[in-house]
């Protein structure tokens, strides 16, 4: 009964002062939305790096070209393999836009043009079908090996092997299906990738150069030796320090760990600041309306409201406004992170950021709504009415 009454009073009061209510909500909305958006950008970057790391096998060295003069050719790759004894597998990698179409269904995935050795190099295993043969590579075969998520989500029960799919307008035949590599069902990542011969990939679309080499060393020790040797060879070849970037998996893990730390700190700081800014916004509005609300409390008490009834109303009012603002903030934040993703920046909304920002905004909203009311409610009606 008292609760229902307080809810009604609170509702009346919210509607009775729409501008004040909107401004209060705005503070919550800004705080929550900005935290969710910012954290989603950081998380997106982090996930992308993580997935890249996962997609590489163990003892892998990645080499990418940083300039146009550094062109990798199959001949160069063969030469490297001859000269460096630690190399077990070496292959060129060509990145391709991955959207594929099967029986009129479009499917979003990443695509890579790879060499014959890609299965052992990347530590991938076949669930069915076959990998690429020498003839596939040399003959620019229109063949494709698909990741487990592609197999599950696109082909849904139909055995992909033997199916025909279209990629960038070209027809491919699926020859192999991979086993799942990551247990969690991520939206992006290695299990959502399709592979075609690199030679075929070079013919597709505009990206007609090999800008990445993947190398698998024979062991951990050989891996670091190989990295050193590669750097030396490329330096001689191009007479420049940064024409080519050689990165072993160890380098990468270390770098990523450092980056993760920096990113976590930075995002934490930004998120904290935007929450505080939002919080100050909320408090500001709440405190500005204190004198007005003090009078209201005086009137309510003068006609016989008990402190508990007054506080109940203010508490519920603050809860309604803050949680409504929080929900709108979550929607806005998720929407913003979606839009950012459309512009090519990877984002991922995290549950933690949603929960933390919502809880914080709710708390600030409730405290700054109820605290002044609690102070005013303690006054005599005459003092509150002055």
């Amino acid at each position, binding site marked *: 009964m008292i609760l229902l009454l307080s809810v009604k009073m609170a509702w009346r*009061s919210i509607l009775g002062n729409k501008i004040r209510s909107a401004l209060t909500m705005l503070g919550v909305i800004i705080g929550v939305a900005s935290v969710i958006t910012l954290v989603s950008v950081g998380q997106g970057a982090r996930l992308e790096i993580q997935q890249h790391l996962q997609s590489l096998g163990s003892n892998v060295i990645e080499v990418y070209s940083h300039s146009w003069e550094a062109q990798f050719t199959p001949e160069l790759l063969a030469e490297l393999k001859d000269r460096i004894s630690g190399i077990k597998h070496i292959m060129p990698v060509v990145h391709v836009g991955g959207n594929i179409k099967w029986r009129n269904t479009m499917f979003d995935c990443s695509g890579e043009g790879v060499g014959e050795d890609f299965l052992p190099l990347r530590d991938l295993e076949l669930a069915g079908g076959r990998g690429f043969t020498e003839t596939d590579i040399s003959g620019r075969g229109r063949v494709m090996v698909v990741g487990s998520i592609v197999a599950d989500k696109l082909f849904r029960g139909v055995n992909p092997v033997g199916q025909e799919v279209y990629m960038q307008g070209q027809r491919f035949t699926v020859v192999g299906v991979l086993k799942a590599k990551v247990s969690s069902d991520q939206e992006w990542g290695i299990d959502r990738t399709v592979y075609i011969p690199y030679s075929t990939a070079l013919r597709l679309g505009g990206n007609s150069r090999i800008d990445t080499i993947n190398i698998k060393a024979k062991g951990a020790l050989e891996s670091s030796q190989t990295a050193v040797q590669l750097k030396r060879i490329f330096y001689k070849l191009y007479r420049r320090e940064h024409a080519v970037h050689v990165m072993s998996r160890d380098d990468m893990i270390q770098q990523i760990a450092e980056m993760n730390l920096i990113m976590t700190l930075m995002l934490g700081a930004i998120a904290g600041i935007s929450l505080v800014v939002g919080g100050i916004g909320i408090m500001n509005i709440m405190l500005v309306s204190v004198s007005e609300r003090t009078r209201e409390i005086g009137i*309510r008490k*003068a*006609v*016989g409201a008990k402190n508990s009834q007054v506080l109940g109303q203010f508490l519920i009012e603050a809860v309604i406004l803050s949680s409504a603002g929080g929900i709108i903030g979550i929607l806005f934040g998720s929407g913003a992170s979606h839009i950012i993703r459309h512009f090519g920046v990877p984002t991922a909304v995290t549950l933690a950021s949603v929960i933390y920002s919502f809880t914080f905004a709710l708390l600030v909203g409730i405290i700054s709504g109820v605290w002044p009311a609690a102070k005013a409610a303690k006054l005599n009606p*005459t003092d509150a009415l002055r």
Partner: protein
Amino acid sequence: MSTIMVDVCSVTKDYYIGKIRIPALRGVDLQITSGEMVAIMGPSGSGKSTLMNILGCLDRPSGGSYKLHGEEVSKKNDAQLAEIRNNAVGFIFQSFNLLPQLTALENVELPLIYRGLAGKNRRAQALNALVRLGLKERLHHRPKELSGGEQQRVAIARAVAAEPEIVLADEPTGALDSRTGEEILALFQELHAQGNTVVVVTHDPNVAYHCERVMYLEDGIVVANEPVRAKDYLLAEEVLAALPPTGEGDAKA
């Protein structure tokens, strides 16, 4: 049935501005019998509003004793005082004190809500009071959309809708024209006739003449306390009948 309704015994009230003590009441003694209609007069700043606030349990005295209906008010806690304000007292403020975001009807309903009255009864009771004060056409107006006199009448409706035992009115007719003022006084006399206790603060001797007794306050002390002489006594109904009919009070019809 002449029980003592209000029993005020050497009540003091001090205000403080910083450390400076401002004695607003300096030992007021006063008794009001149940069902009486009393006027309180006195110059501005003499402590009339201060006294009314104490009588209405809106404020606590600094010293002395105040018994309402035989019960010592200073011994009550906040919740009990709220109940007294809600059930026993109808307070009409010098400055209306309506909630700006609520309509006239909702304002009048407010004390009934806190009393826990269910929706239909509550609405009917509030409506009744507003109609009685000639505000049938103004039910859904906000205070801002009402004239000063209309706001005053909403405030009065709010006080009387709750059917209190004692009505305390601080300058209830100050903002009204003579006809509307007289109509308010008629209402008070009607409440009085029904057995309610009515206390009216006023500067206007003509208003005081509508009461049975007048108390004079000066500098926080009661300086005179005397019954209204029969020859001075005014019945609002008669005064109204004698007034020339104008368009002003038509809302009442």
